[in-house]
């Protein structure tokens, strides 16, 4: 059976001698793995349309085990991002999270559109940390892990919410804090307010949110812990981004 779909390329790995095994994400079909044959040959026209974080129209043939990619056409290759190390790393980071969090063939159309929108924003405007945090939070929500940000998960109160319990999946008030000992992440009022704004914010709202450096740091830490808690794995690209950034321009050896 033949079909075609616009897809995001999550990753391509070497497969057999001249082939690539490509993991793609489609709005309609979810995450799929498909073989692109003869990709290392110079004449292959498929090669550029299966690079990580390309948006491509791919034609598939449903094989017995794996899909086969028969044709491809680039829709958007996010050229600005590809020319810039930081944007490249963050774009690949989005692909890594998708790779590690999506089940095969389970479409989540809202998440697909969120990813495409985030890749476009990164390409057009560069890295705004809040755009990345917005993606992380809303990805968790699309996957069914919506944090309870508006009331204490123990007593239901909405005052003095000061910590987040990973195990309970929500905020804890100062009064209930002593009774809940493990896995609490301290959260400032500013950080909590930004999280609430990020929930479902569109790009024009996102552009207007202001955050202090300490809130940004807390937010990044919180979302990293939150995703790792639910997805049960670390993300390599986060480490790579941390690793490569300080070494820019640094050289004594």
């Amino acid at each position: 059976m033949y079909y075609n779909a616009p897809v995001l390329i999550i990753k391509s790995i070497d497969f057999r001698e001249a082939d690539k095994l490509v993991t793609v994400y489609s709005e309609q079909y979810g995450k799929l793995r498909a073989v692109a044959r003869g990709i290392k040959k110079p004449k292959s026209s498929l090669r550029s349309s299966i690079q990580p974080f390309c948006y491509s129209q791919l034609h598939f043939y449903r094989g017995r085990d794996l899909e086969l990619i028969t044709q491809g056409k680039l829709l958007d290759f996010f050229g600005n991002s590809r020319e810039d190390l930081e944007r490249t790393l963050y774009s690949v980071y989005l692909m890594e999270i998708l790779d590690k969090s999506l089940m095969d063939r389970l479409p989540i159309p809202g998440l697909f559109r969120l990813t495409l929108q985030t890749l476009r924003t990164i390409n057009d405007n560069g890295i705004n940390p809040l755009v990345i945090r917005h993606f992380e939070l809303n990805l968790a929500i699309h996957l069914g892990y919506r944090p309870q940000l508006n009331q204490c998960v123990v007593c239901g109160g909405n005052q003095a919410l000061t910590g987040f319990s990973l195990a309970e999946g929500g905020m804890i008030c100062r009064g209930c804090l002593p009774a809940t000992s493990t896995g609490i992440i301290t959260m400032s009022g500013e950080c909590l307010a930004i999280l609430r704004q990020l929930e479902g914010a569109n790009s024009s709202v996102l552009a207007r949110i202001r955050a202090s450096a300490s809130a940004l740091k807390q937010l990044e830490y919180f979302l990293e812990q939150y995703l790792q808690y639910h997805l049960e794995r670390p993300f390599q690209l986060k480490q790579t981004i941390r690793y490569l950034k300080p070494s820019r321009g640094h050289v004594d050896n």
Partner: protein
Amino acid sequence: MRLARPLENLINQLLKLPTIGPKTAQRLALYILKLPESEARQIAQAIIDAREKVAPCSSCGCLTDVDPCAICEDEEREGHILCVAEETSDVIAIERTGFRGRYYVLNKNFHLMDGFNLDDLHLQPLLDQLSSGKIQEMVLALNPDIDGEVLSRYLADLAKPHQVRVTRLAHGLPVGGDIEFADEITLRRALEGRNDV
């Protein structure tokens, strides 16, 4: 029918090789059994010899049976140009072009999604060479994909304080190719790297 143990073992060993599936492994194993004994021994001995005698050159990383390797020992080479490649097979390809500089082979495939660990990349000998003052230009000959680009930028940053010129292979159209059928990424890079005629 159960296969003879040694035959089954041979098939299992061959299965470890890349691109070899169960059918191919079986065909190869049966073929080896039909060979004259001396030839089968030659194959086995060649594997053992290669494993025992070939190792990365301590200076450039090329696979060699004499250390330092023939390229490192070649006094005629232009010592001020250093070409960084991923594998010895890339060096073999570049040698065919008549390039006369020296090499640094990483012997390691770098994949962003598998994590980035500098220690795995063995860069100290490269840093030593860059700081020796003998190198004027470092040519980055890494694959033109995301992994190769990220690594190239990282290595370029490392070289910056040593006042070494850093270049990378041009991205462009394959010879005999057709502009009409080139993809946008390649064409954009080819335009950026355009030359005076």
